[in-house]
C-alpha cells in the first residue's frame, strides 16, 4: 500500500505514476459511454460462455433474468398489479435505490482519489442506527421521526467512514486497509447488537437473534405496490435526489472543486492552497454518509428489522463498487449501473422463474458478472486497446 509516511521525502525528478483520478479522466476522454457498455458486454459474454459450458442456454437464461427483474413490464405496462412483472420491477427498483446510494459512496471517495471499500460497513452502521432510532422513539410524529432516523443513519455512516479518512489524513493509514477492518468491525458489532443479549435484540422473543421492528411512525410511505409485500417506498426519490446532490456537490461547489483537485493531484492541490488532509476526511465522511443513508432508508423503507443471519448475506455495499466503477464515478453512470445490478440482483434470485437456469446458479452468475465487470473496468488499458483497434479497423475499412 502506498501510504507515504511523513518521514520519507518525496521522490524528486521522477514523474509519479498516474493516480487513480487521472487515469479515470483519461478514460472519460477516451471512451465516453462506450467503455462501460463494452465492459458490461464482455462480462455478460463471458458469463454466457460459462452458462453455455455447463449445459444451459445462455440466451434463454438471460431472457429469464430480464423478465425476473421485471423489465418486461416496459413492453406491456398496462398489465394489472397482480402480475409478476410490475411486482418484480418494484423489487428491482428497491435494490436500485440501495445501489444508487452505495454506488455514490464509492464514487465520491474515488473522485478524491480514495477507494472506499467500506461501503458495506457504513451501510450496516446506518442500518443499525435507523433501527435503533426507528424503534426506540416510537410515538413520535411520522415526519420528524423519519427525518430524525434518516439523519442519524446518514451521520452514522459518515462517522464510520470518517474514521478511515481521519486515519489517512492524520497518520497516512491506507484507507483500503482501514475500511476493510471497519467493515468487519461493523459486521461483528451487528452480530453483538442483534444477538443474544445485545442492545438491539427484540424484546418479544429473546431466543431469536433478530432486532425489533421499527415503529410504524418511522416507516417510509410506499407509493407503488403493496405495503405488506415490500412495495416501492419513497426512498427511491431520496436516492434520485442524492444523485442530483452528488452532481451539484462535486461540480458546482467549492467543496467539490477541492475534492476533485485532491483526487487529480494532491501535490498540485496543496500547492494551490487546498488542504489535502481536510479534504480527505471530508470526502470520506460524505462518501460514508451516502452509504449510511442507504442503510437508513433500507431499514425504514422495507426491511423494518434485521437479524444476525441477515448480516453475512448482504453485499449491497460491495456491489456499490461495481456500480460506481461501471458508472465511471459520475451521477448518471451510477444510476444506470445501479439499475443494471439492481435488476441482476433481484432478477437472478427471488424474481427468477426459469426452467433454463436455477436461481442458485443465476445468483452466482451475478457475482461472476460483477467480478468480471470490476476486473475489466479496473484494466482500462485492455478496453482502450479493444476500442482503439476497433476504430483503427473502421478507419482502415473506410480508407480501403
Amino acid at each position, binding site marked *: 500500500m502506498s501510504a507515504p509516511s511523513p518521514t520519507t521525502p518525496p521522490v524528486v525528478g521522477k514523474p509519479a505514476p498516474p493516480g487513480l483520478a487521472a487515469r479515470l479522466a483519461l478514460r472519460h476522454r477516451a471512451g465516453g459511454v462506450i467503455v462501460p457498455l463494452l465492459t458490461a458486454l464482455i462480462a455478460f459474454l463471458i458469463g454466457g460462455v460459462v452458462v453455455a459450458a455447463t449445459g444451459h442456454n445462455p440466451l434463454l437464461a438471460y431472457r429469464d433474468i430480464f423478465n425476473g427483474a421485471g423489465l418486461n413490464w416496459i413492453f406491456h405496462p398496462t398489465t394489472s398489479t397482480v402480475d409478476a412483472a410490475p411486482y418484480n420491477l418494484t423489487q428491482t427498483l428497491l435494490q436500485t435505490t440501495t445501489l444508487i446510494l452505495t454506488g455514490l459512496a464509492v464514487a465520491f471517495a474515488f473522485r478524491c482519489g480514495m477507494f472506499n471499500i467500506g461501503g458495506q460497513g457504513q451501510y450496516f452502521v446506518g442500518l443499525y442506527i435507523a433501527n435503533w432510532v426507528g424503534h426506540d422513539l416510537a410515538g413520535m410524529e411520522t415526519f420528524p421521526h423519519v427525518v430524525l432516523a434518516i439523519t442519524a443513519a446518514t451521520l452514522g455512516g459518515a462517522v464510520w467512514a470518517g474514521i478511515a479518512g481521519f486515519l489517512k489524513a492524520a497518520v497516512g493509514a491506507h484507507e483500503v486497509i482501514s475500511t476493510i477492518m471497519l467493515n468487519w468491525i461493523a459486521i461483528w458489532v451487528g452480530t453483538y447488537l442483534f444477538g443474544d443479549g445485545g442492545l438491539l435484540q427484540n424484546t418479544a422473543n429473546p431466543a431469536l437473534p433478530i432486532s425489533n421492528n421499527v415503529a410504524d411512525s418511522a416507516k417510509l410511505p410506499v407509493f407503488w405496490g403493496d405495503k405488506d409485500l415490500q412495495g416501492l417506498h419513497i426512498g427511491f426519490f431520496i436516492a434520485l435526489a442524492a444523485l442530483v446532490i452528488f452532481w451539484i456537490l462535486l461540480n458546482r461547489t467549492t467543496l467539490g472543486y477541492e475534492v476533485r483537485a485532491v483526487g487529480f493531484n494532491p501535490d498540485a492541490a496543496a500547492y494551490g492552497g487546498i488542504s489535502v488532509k481536510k479534504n480527505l476526511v471530508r470526502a470520506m465522511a460524505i462518501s460514508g454518509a451516502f452509504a449510511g443513508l442507504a442503510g437508513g432508508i433500507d431499514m425504514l423503507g422495507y426491511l423494518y428489522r434485521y437479524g444476525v443471519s441477515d448480516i453475512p448475506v448482504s453485499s449491497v455495499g460491495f456491489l456499490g463498487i461495481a456500480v460506481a466503477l461501471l458508472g465511471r464515478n459520475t451521477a448518471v453512470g451510477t444510476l444506470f449501473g445501479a439499475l443494471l445490478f439492481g435488476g441482476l440482483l433481484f432478477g437472478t434470485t427471488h424474481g427468477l422463474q426459469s426452467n433454463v437456469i436455477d436461481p442458485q446458479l443465476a445468483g*452466482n452468475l451475478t457475482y461472476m458478472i460483477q467480478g468480471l465487470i470490476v476486473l475489466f473496468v479496473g484494466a482500462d488499458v485492455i478496453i482502450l486497446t479493444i476500442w482503439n483497434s476497433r476504430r483503427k479497423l473502421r478507419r482502415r475499412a473506410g480508407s480501403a
Partner: protein
Amino acid sequence: MSRRAGLSRERLLDPRSVGKTGILLGGLACFLTIPPIQARSIVWTVLVGIVAAAFGIWAVTRGQKRVGFGAMASGIIGVGLGILATRSGTSNLNTVFRPDLVASMFVFSTPLIFAGIGGMYSERSGVVNIGLEGMMLLGAFWAVYGADKTGSWIGGVAIAMLAGGLMALIYAFFAIHLRADQIVGGTAVNFLAVGITGYFFFQLYHGDNVPSGISTIPKVNIPYVENWRFLGPAIGHLNLMIWLSFALVAVSYVVIFKTPIGLRIRACGEHPRAADTVGINVYRVRYGSVVLSGLLAALGGAYLSIGFGGGAFTDNMTAGRGFIALAAMIFGNWRPLGTFYAALLFGLSTALAYRLPVYSGTAATLFQVLPYVLTLIAVAGVIGRTVPPAADGKPYVRQ
C-alpha cells in the same frame, strides 16, 4: 523474574527490551489465573500486572513510548482479564482452557498463516493482493472437487493449488501487464471467486450433495508425545497442514531474508527501477510472487475444506479469513515471523471466541472482532507503526 537474571547489564537496562518484557509480563498476569496454573487469588495477577505497568512507565520515561505504552496497556488488560478469570467458576475455566486450546489455536491460525505468508510474498514484490480471500475460497472448493474426483487428498490439494494459481495468474496479468488498479483487481478476484465457487458448487453438487467420506488431509499422530498429559492434546494429533505451515514460515523467513531470490523480491517491492537497472526482471519476479501467493492462499483454503473441515464445502466458507490473513500480514509488518505470530494471536482469538459462549455471547463476539481492531490500531500507528514496502501497489512501467 529469573529469566532476566542471565541477561547482560546493557540488555537489562535497555528501555526497549524492558518495555517488551513488560508486555510479556502483562500476558503472564493473565496467564497465571487460567489453567494449568490457575491461581485463584487476585494478588498474583495484580502484582505481576503492576510490575508490567511499572516497566512500561520506566520505558516511556526513557523515550521508548510505543513499547512502554504497550507494556502499560498489556499490564492493565492482563490484570483486568486475570481478575475476571479469578471471579469465574473453576469448571468454566477448565472448559475453555483445556490443553487442546493450543491445538485449536493452530487449527484456526493455519489458514491465516498460508494466506498471510502468500500475501507477504506478493506485497513484498510490490503487488497488493486483497484477492487472498477469493483465492482461498477457490482453493477450498476445488480441493473438495479434486479430492472427490481423484479419490485422494493429494489430488484435491493439487487441483486447489491449480485453481488458486490460475486465478492469481489472471490477477497478475491485470495488475502487472495491464497496470490495472490493484485494489480494484483484487476486489474483482473476490467477487469472481464467490461467483465461480457458488456456481460450480450448485452445478456439480446441487449445493449440498458432496459425497461424504471423501479423502481428507491426514492428521499426524506423534508417537509417545500423543499420550503425554499436556503436549498430547496440544500437539499430538495436529493436521499435516499445520506442521507444513510451520515449515512454510521457517522456509519463507530464510527465502525472504537470506537468499538472493528474497533480495530480488524485496528489491522489486521497494524500488523496482533500481532492481530493473541491475538486471532483475521485475515483471517475472512479480508474476512469480503473485502466483505463489495464490498457490499458498489456495492451500489455506484446501485446509479449511478437506483438512479441518472434514471434506465439506459451504457457500462462501472462508467467511473473511482471507481478510484476517491480510490483517495478520499487516499486523506482522510484512515479515514471515511477524505474520506467523499475528496469525497465532488471531487464531487464538478465534479459538477463544468459539469457546467463550459458556460465559457470554458478547465476550465471544469481542474476540471475533479483536483481529480487526488490533490491525486498525496497528495501521493507525498507535503501538508500533507498520511500514509497507515502498513500491507496494504501484504498477511498474519498464523504460
